[in-house]
């Protein structure tokens, strides 16, 4: 097998970046960590991507262009087996970058279930220090623990935002917790997690407040990455809404990469719930979006916000069953199709109207 060309880069996705950077470095790679996508990144990506590719492809294209310009020789990315387009993005990105004259390799993680040897070899490529399997397992476990802690902190932030007494306290506490956890070393991690928790718990809240609860469903990248959805969770939090996100990176990885490799289907409840409206796996997160909307009442949600990239195939299908679902189950649903043209003011206005409508509905219902 040819040796991996260094340094390596990878896509930008929220909390994963510091953890993945650390993990790749520990395994002996030179890393060019991706930076948070900016307007420039998006413009770069849009100008060299197909017009009707979904927004994540364009943002990733921009990110990769920036990485390559900063010297990355290999991009580590994830694959997929369809029918969502995202599974073909790595080979397409590679083809586009090469046709633009950049000499860059791609190392793609396909779901282990389809070929354990291929997965093993992919990991092996990144194992520049030639560590033993147990050692790698240890490192993965440690990275996983960090990711879990970061997800927990973020969940706590969503709970705190609408309840904080002083605007901005929750976000400040979260940033402190985030920095504490990501900068912790191995021996210090347990202590860091405890401190992060304590920091978040010390935010002063109004215990009597009963905020609206809105579920966020949709396509994984625009849900998880605030740079792609104009920070919609913060907008909602600032409107006094508790955000309940349907997916976190650790939960998703567990359901779709780890359990799946063991032959267990993850997220069964949600998929079962979706069946009445959408009785077919259509790739991406189409079925999950529908399932979460069906379960909204059961989970005590007042409404659902669906986030989808413009032209996203699975989310278009799920959006088209949402109207009926919303009428049948009395769950208000608002869908945002997001792309590079989406403006903050427009999103804010629609969100405010939605939240007003929900709080009114709640008052009348009581």
């Amino acid at each position, binding site marked *: 097998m040819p040796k991996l060309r260094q340094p390596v880069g990878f896509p930008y996705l929220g909390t994963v970046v510091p953890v993945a950077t650390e993990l790749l470095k520990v395994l002996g790679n030179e890393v060019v960590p991706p930076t948070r996508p900016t307007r420039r990144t998006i413009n770069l990506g849009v100008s060299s991507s197909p017009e009707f590719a979904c927004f994540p492809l364009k943002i990733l294209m921009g990110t990769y262009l920036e990485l390559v310009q900063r010297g990355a020789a290999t991009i580590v990315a994830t694959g997929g087996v369809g029918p969502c387009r995202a599974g073909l993005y790595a080979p397409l990105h590679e083809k586009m970058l090469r046709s633009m004259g950049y000499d860059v390799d791609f190392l793609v993680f396909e779901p282990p279930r389809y070929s354990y040897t291929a997965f093993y070899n992919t990991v092996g490529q990144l194992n520049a220090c030639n560590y033993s399997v147990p050692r790698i397992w240890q490192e993965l476990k440690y990275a996983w623990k960090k990711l879990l802690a970061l997800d927990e902190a973020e969940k706590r932030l969503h709970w705190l935002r609408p309840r904080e007494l002083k605007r901005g306290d929750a976000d400040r506490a979260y940033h402190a917790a985030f920095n504490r956890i990501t900068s912790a070393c191995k021996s210090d991690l347990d202590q860091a997690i405890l401190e992060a928790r304590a920091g978040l718990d010390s935010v002063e809240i109004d215990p009597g407040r009963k905020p609206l609860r809105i579920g966020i469903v949709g396509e994984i990248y625009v849900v998880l990455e605030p740079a792609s959805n104009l920070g919609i969770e913060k907008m909602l939090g600032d409107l006094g809404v508790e955000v309940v996100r349907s997916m976190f990176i650790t939960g998703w990885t567990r359901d779709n990469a780890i359990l799946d490799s063991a032959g267990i289907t993850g997220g069964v409840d949600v998929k079962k719930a979706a069946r009445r409206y959408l009785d077919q796996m259509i790739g991406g997160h189409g079925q999950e979006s529908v399932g979460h909307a069906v379960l909204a009442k059961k989970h005590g949600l007042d409404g659902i916000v669906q986030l989808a990239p413009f032209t*996203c195939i699975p989310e278009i299908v799920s959006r088209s069953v949402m109207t009926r679902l919303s009428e049948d189950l009395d769950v208000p649903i608002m869908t945002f199709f997001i792309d590079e043209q989406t403006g903050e003011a427009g999103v804010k206005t629609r969100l405010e109207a939605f939240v007003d409508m929900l709080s009114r509905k709640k008052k009348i219902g009581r």
Partner: protein
Amino acid sequence: MGLVVGIPRALFYYRYYPIWERFFRELGATVVCSPPTSRAIVDMGARECIAEACIPIKLYHGHVAALLDKVDVLFIPRLVSVRPKAVFCPKFLGLPDMVKNSFKHLPRVIDVRVDLRRGPFELLRVAEAVARCIGAGRSRALYALWSALRTLKSGYPSAQPPAEGDLRVAVVGYPYEVHDPYVNVGTLEKLRSLGVVPVTVEDLSQRTLNSAPNPLRKHLFWTWSEDTVHAAEYFFQTKSVDGVIHVTAFGCGPDAIVNKCLEIESKKTGAVPFMTLMIDEHTGDAGVRTRLEAFVDMIRRQRSVAGCRS
């Protein structure tokens, strides 16, 4: 007279209609097909379907609307896969759900899942399940399937009239875009009137398609996208046509990838001119005519220049 089964003249109609028509007829049902696409059907489709969907899906909704009070049952199968390594576009996979949840009052819908990857006898099971929906038993289902499959020999319903001309231009794309003259504003007919013989994906055998190279490291996931890419690759490699036109719908998900691949590949080979023709609800006659004329003129001019030089 048995049940009246309605089949919308959209999407898979352009491949499978003769088989389905024969199948239902053998089972004693009457088959009604929606009228050819018209402005009224486009408008009905746009009204019933969500705005973000692509024009072929909107058209499908329009054709369903045109059948509503004319039929007892609607045949909207959930076509998942007919090949070992490919599925249909996710919108096809969710099509029965989209239709059922968009219309308030629908006749009964036959939405049997067709996923031939499940086993060698899956097609028999599907035929039986469909027959059961209209009250026919197993033996009649098997006989109907056998006679239906024999219609395959007579070719696709979209077979073209013979044409004469000095140029051959390939029009690649999905059957429901290339062979619906309303939605592509008569692209094939216009080419013929310009003295061009249009060649489509259907003119190549499946074996030829399968032998064409893959532009990406990975197989495309979608059946008809794979065919489109392979057909274009075949034309680029063999140079058996004078130009390639890719017909694609506004907002088509799979085509975002297909079109980019074709663009890069055509530049790489460089010998065959390539053009993308995008269609949507607002595509106008004059716009398409102008672009086709320009494309054909360009090919002719290039030829005459090359002829003078040699």
